[in-house]
């Protein structure tokens, strides 16, 4: 079946729905999601969304937010995109409030703001209250509010449709192919404009804060269509995942004053970031935690975790501002954080890299920023790049909302000029063949075993600390896993809700772009932001102050290119906190 819409957006998280709200003012928009909109992983974000509203700190200013974001990115963020992000932030937040987001409030009735890692006043002097929050349900209430606004604006949703193919002919995007999960069967979505907002890919790691659905589908579809991905080696490991589970415990806890303690009960951040302490950026805090554990100062019988201590914040304040943290600890960790410190470990959380786009959300296909006509992306799946080598907490909800809006506006502007170009003769041919091949797999390998081997080995060899030796090893492991993937077995041949085939397709996606993460990390012989090489511990601005572009051809060959970083007001400096 073929559906025709002006615009088709894949993904119904914050970026996808915010874009839909803009584009649907002037065009017929369809949003495709493999879940339901309210199930998207934006809803798991807890702590806040950054903007210089000055509701708590009257001396905060937009320029401080820019500086913090650039420094936090370890100077790999593009400063034009960061200027846009920080300039637009206040207006973007006020809009969400007008839409109905139930923010927590200051005593005067303004949007409440709290501290978050890496956000400071006067270029690092003191922590800034810049994170606007709704208790620790900030992502959840934003997601639901955008969904509500989409209902109001009658945006057409195709829920439980999974994108399985991207149609690009001669650098012109014509739409996508999607699988109807509820009924079975392929559908073509033929559109003038196509946008990816498919989120992240934390599921390639063993310990992750990400949902089962976070399998990077949009990235893999771009890669298969011959398009490059940018900066894939930069993966953020969040410092405070619940021990063994990886479930996110918001940085909002540290924003409210929580301590990090090692097995000796020391506030070990003193050694690594004496000024900002627990509120240093995530890459530094995660490395500090790993270092404590590697040097034998971890907690517990295996000395394999550290503690997050919120007891001194007090039961009343915890219930008021971080209630979800307590319920997550009680339900998933069997720990009551009012009485005991919480065991935590680093957890794969966010992909700074992704589909390369211009500041306005247009997808590019080479080092010269040439445009793929009619293709757009925003949110975690995109690389603008506002986060560079390390994202600051609360800048992701802002990125998804601000750049979702920006990209929606770009589409609204472009739509009059874009035509509904003719589809190729059989636009589903490749996809049909690929799904048929997966569905008919009668080999010996179980998908779950390959998936576990992928995430265990990525955790082991491509985690917080990396080395040439480990990455070489991982490169070979991925080749072996791809080989084993050809021998999988599919049990389910039904049409209705065949999640067996969908999970196998997702595994295929993850194996392919994991090669870019690993080989990109191997190629980048320096340490910058979240990419930390023990064999190259220093940042190297002479050779590596640039973005990685990587392509993967049908035979699995990877080719690399690079793109300069946009530098405006801030020259790279040593990064201390």
């Amino acid at each position, binding site marked *: 079946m073929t559906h025709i819409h002006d615009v088709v957006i894949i993904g119904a998280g914050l970026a996808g729905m915010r874009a839909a709200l803009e584009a649907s003012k002037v065009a017929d928009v369809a949003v495709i999601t493999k879940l*339901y909109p309210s*199930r998207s992983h934006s809803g798991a974000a807890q702590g806040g969304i950054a903007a210089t509203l000055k509701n708590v700190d009257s001396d905060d200013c937009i320029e401080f937010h820019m500086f913090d974001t650039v420094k936090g990115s370890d100077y790999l963020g593009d400063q034009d995109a960061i200027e846009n992000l920080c300039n637009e932030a206040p207006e973007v937040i006020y809009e969400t409030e*007008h839409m109905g987001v139930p*923010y927590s409030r200051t005593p005067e009735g303004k949007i409440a703001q709290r501290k978050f890692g890496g956000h400071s006043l006067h270029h690092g002097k003191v922590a800034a209250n810049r994170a606007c929050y709704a208790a620790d349900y900030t992502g959840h209430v934003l997601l639901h509010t955008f969904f509500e606004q989409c209902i109001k604006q009658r945006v057409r949703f195709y829920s439980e449709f999974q994108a399985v193919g991207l149609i690009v002919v001669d650098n012109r995007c014509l739409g996508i192919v999607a699988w109807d999960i509820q009924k079975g069967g392929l559908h073509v979505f033929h559109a003038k404009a196509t946008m990816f907002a498919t989120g992240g890919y934390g599921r390639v790691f063993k310990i992750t804060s990400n949902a089962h659905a976070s399998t990077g589908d949009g990235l893999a579809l771009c890669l298969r269509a011959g398009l490059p991905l940018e900066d894939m080696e930069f993966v953020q490991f969040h410092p405070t995942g619940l021990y063994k589970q990886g479930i996110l415990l918001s940085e909002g806890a540290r924003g409210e004053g929580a301590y990090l303690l090692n097995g000796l009960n020391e506030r070990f951040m003193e050694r690594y970031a004496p000024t900002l302490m627990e509120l240093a950026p995530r890459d530094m805090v995660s490395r500090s935690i790993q270092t404590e554990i590697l040097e034998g100062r971890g907690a517990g019988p295996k000395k394999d975790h550290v503690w997050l201590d919120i007891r001194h914040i007090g039961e009343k304040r915890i219930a008021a501002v971080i209630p979800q943290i307590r319920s997550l600890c009680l339900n998933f960790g069997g720990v009551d954080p009012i009485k005991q410190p919480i065991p935590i470990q680093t957890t794969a959380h966010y992909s700074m890299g992704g589909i390369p786009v211009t500041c306005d959300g247009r997808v590019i296909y080479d080092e010269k920023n040439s445009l793929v006509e009619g293709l757009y992306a925003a949110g975690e799946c995109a690389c603008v790049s506002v986060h560079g080598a390390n994202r600051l907490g609360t800048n992701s909800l802002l990125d998804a909302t601000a750049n979702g809006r920006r990209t929606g506006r770009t589409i609204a502007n472009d739509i009059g000029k874009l035509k509904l170009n003719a589809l190729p003769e059989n636009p589903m041919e490749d996809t049909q063949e690929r799904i048929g091949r997966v569905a008919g797999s009668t080999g010996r390998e179980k998908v779950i075993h390959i998936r576990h081997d992928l995430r265990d080995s990525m955790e082991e060899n491509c985690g917080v600390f990396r080395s040439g030796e480990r990455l070489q090893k991982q490169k070979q492991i991925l080749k072996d896993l791809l080989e084993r993937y050809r021998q999988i077995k599919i049990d*389910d041949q039904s049409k209705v809700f065949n999640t067996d085939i969908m999970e196998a397709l997702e595994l295929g996606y993850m194996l392919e772009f994991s090669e870019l993460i690993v080989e990109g990390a191997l190629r980048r012989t320096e340490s910058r932001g979240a990419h930390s090489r023990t064999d190259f511990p220093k940042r190297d601005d002479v050779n590596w102050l640039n973005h990685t572009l990587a392509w993967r051809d049908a035979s699995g060959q990877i080719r690399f290119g690079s793109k300069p970083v946009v530098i405006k007001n801030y020259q790279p400096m040593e990064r201390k906190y």
Partner: protein
Amino acid sequence: MIRTFKILRFNLEKDKKPHFQNYQTECPPGYTVLDVLYDIKGLQDGTLSYRRSCRSGVCGSCGMKINGVNLLACKTQVESLKKKVIHVEPLPGFPVMRDLIVDLTPFWEKLENIKPYLINHTPPPTTERYQSAEDQLKIEEATWCILCNCCTSSCPSLWANKEYLGPAALLKAYRFVFDSRDEGAEERYKVLNTKSGLWRCHTIFNCMDACPQEINITEYISKLKTRVVSERY
């Protein structure tokens, strides 16, 4: 330890009616029902279908009936069930699409009917609309609803009358009617103050027991009733 899971299976392409299928599986300490379903699907039977995503209780995908109670599979520790044999079934009150997956279309339609969005005809200021911390607290807990429908499908009034809006849609109505920024109460009363609306709630409290977010749903519905009575009668 090893436990037996009796899972209600249904595949309309093959089965005339649903039937229980038994699976034995190892459940280490800390295992949730979702972990068990994941293992069964991956290791024993790839045809088992269920919805899941966040596995941390916030997306609302994995509501199902576990030993007779509506729960989120991801939030339910196997040990807490204290039974050797565990029954897992789809949420009651909705048509079953396959195995543990129900058709939520009737719910999404009801949700739309109550106009689930802020209605405010006054042009907004250039900054935020002010709201007192006290007014925000009136709606805060209600906004934590994850639309999992554990409540809706536990409601005997809904089992008896499928047209009834049900607790989740009413909770959403409460969240807007009691939002100091909202001006749409009158429009919503037209839907709430009907035969299939607010008055079908008989204060049975099943919804509150079922809510994985521990929201005081019945209390909010009662406040909504009081408000409608005081403004309309």
